[in-house]
């Protein structure tokens, strides 16, 4: 009797979470996998099995190539720069400086803003001639640059926004980790003759490695997930120069209604993220000292 009662209670407790997970995570994942090997159903023509057809199409798709390469550049810049900035900001606001509380708040503000709001703020910054950046540059005789409107600068303009948005968020984790380091460890290092950079490299950074891995995983996810500003500012243009994988998937699925191809693209992105996660846990995790 008791066993079954226990079972009922645990089942009841797990049920809501399980329903949500299955309905919104597991079922869509499996459905996407299945859809990726079928054609898109249209009108009276139901979906037909096409095997690797969708993937073959991808190989020949120049927009996909563009999006893939853009996303790699985007990730390769956003991840290290936002993490580096986050670390620098955390070290700064952890030090005994005047107005520390204000600076902490200022650094964290971009995080609490919705990405659409962020995009609108930056739209003003980037406006040719009247925008903040151009007004400032005009003092030096430059200006008149359409940052979001030309292929050579548009992707970089979006990268800057993403870094601005993420660095403050990551800073909070670094700050928490910094405050976990016992001060006597740093005193001992100082007493042994370590200067600031030696303390940073030999004591602080190694002790923060678990946090760094956590932030790295988050940064990778964000680098592929965060496309709100693409939708709000450029819609992948001009000439696909700001086309990112997830935004392309969104366009294919909901603008072109080519759901099968979108499913195949999703599978590629899933595999890509899976491989990165494997590397992070399999390779980096073993090199990290956990307290």
């Amino acid at each position, binding site marked *: 009797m008791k066993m079954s009662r226990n079972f009922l209670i645990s089942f009841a407790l797990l049920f809501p979470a399980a329903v949500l997970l299955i309905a919104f995570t597991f079922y869509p994942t499996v459905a996407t996998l299945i859809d990726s090997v079928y054609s898109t159903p249209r009108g009276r023509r139901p979906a037909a099995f096409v095997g690797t057809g969708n993937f073959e199409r991808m190989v020949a798709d120049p927009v996909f190539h563009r999006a893939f390469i853009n996303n790699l550049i985007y990730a390769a810049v956003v991840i290290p720069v936002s993490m580096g900035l986050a670390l620098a900001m955390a070290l700064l606001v952890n030090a005994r400086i005047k107005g520390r509380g204000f600076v902490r708040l200022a650094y964290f503000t971009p995080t609490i803003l919705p990405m659409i709001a962020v995009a609108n703020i930056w739209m003003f910054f980037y406006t040719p001639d009247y925008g903040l950046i151009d007004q400032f540059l005009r003092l030096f005789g430059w200006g008149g640059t359409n940052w979001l409107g030309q292929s050579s600068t548009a992707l970089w303009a979006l990268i800057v926004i993403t870094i601005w948005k993420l660095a403050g968020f990551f800073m909070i984790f670094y700050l928490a980790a910094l405050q976990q380091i016992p001060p*006597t*460890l740093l005193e001992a290092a*100082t*007493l*042994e003759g370590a200067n600031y950079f030696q303390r940073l490299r*030999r004591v602080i950074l190694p002790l923060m490695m678990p946090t760094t891995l956590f932030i790295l995983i988050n940064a990778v996810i964000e680098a592929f997930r965060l496309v709100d500003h693409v939708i709000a500012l450029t819609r992948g243009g001009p000439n696909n120069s700001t086309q990112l994988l997830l935004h392309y998937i969104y366009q294919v699925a909901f603008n072109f209604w080519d759901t099968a191809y979108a499913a195949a693209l999703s599978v590629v992105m899933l595999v890509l993220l899976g491989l990165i996660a494997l590397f992070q846990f399999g390779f980096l995790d073993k090199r990290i*000292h956990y307290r």
Partner: protein
Amino acid sequence: MSVLTIRGLNKFWGDTHVVRDLDLETREGEFIALLGPSGCGKSTTLRLIAGLEDASSGEILLDGKQITNLPSAKRGISMVFQSYALFPHLTVADNITFGLSVRGESRKSQSEKLARVAPLLGLKDLLDRRPSQLSGGQQQRVALGRALIASAPVCLLDEPLSNLDASLRAEMRNEIRSLQRRLGITMIFVTHDQTEAMSMADRVALLRNGRIEQFDTPEVLYSRPASTFVAKFIGAPPMNILDVGAFKACGMTIDGKFKVGLRPEEIFLVERGLPGRVTHAEYFGADSVLSVDVEGVQCAVRLQGRPAIVPGATLHLGWNADALHLFDAETGLRQEAAVAQPDWVQLQPA
């Protein structure tokens, strides 16, 4: 061999005066204990010497050279922290050679010095372990190794034994003491445990409210305490401090400006002496401590073995003439004055 001199050292934390006009000079290769109750400023003093805190005023000299304003790494002083402060991500070997490595010593010289220090501390087989894989005593040795490897002339230890269990503590006590003798370095260690201070140190500085109450050898601290505070801090149980009135019962008259100190272990039982009633007895194996009510004042008496005395019994207490210590009743400072004492008090034990 080095001499550390501290002159007029002061430290304020805001309005709190934690270290007051501290003067202290070590002799060559001496082992000094900073002893005192918690909050007396002993750890702050140590941190001031190490340069982890800035002095509000006063100076610190090492072999006559000003080090008051030098950064801690340049002072020629090493330190063992109470929590050991070992780097958890480094091996024992890397922990010990950390200082050498950040100061850019060659790997060869690092491993030579490590090979010299590790066997001294019995760490030879543990060099590849990490701190989390070590026992408390082993961690303590690693911290000592890190402090000793650079051969700094002065080594500071902050409550070095407080995190160890009792048996290990006794072992480490001997070990630290013999290491200090063998290496001939000056060691200053902070402790709140009088047994530790008395058994290890050449000289003990007893601190109270940021001031040195007495700075002398353990023998002098015990036999000639400079104040009632010292008298009550040293010894277990501590010295009895009695009002002069209590001595009327045995026909002694002592000037009322004094208080009288008498160590529990210097009291013996006599046929006719100071009468008192036993309130309770504690048995410790080798000896027993009786609480005796003398004219309304509790007086501890330490007797060998387990005397057949039950609470309620009346005893007569006696002592030798030189066992009495006189203190000023107001300032608590030691007074040198002879006390006339009837012969019968120091008669043979009953």
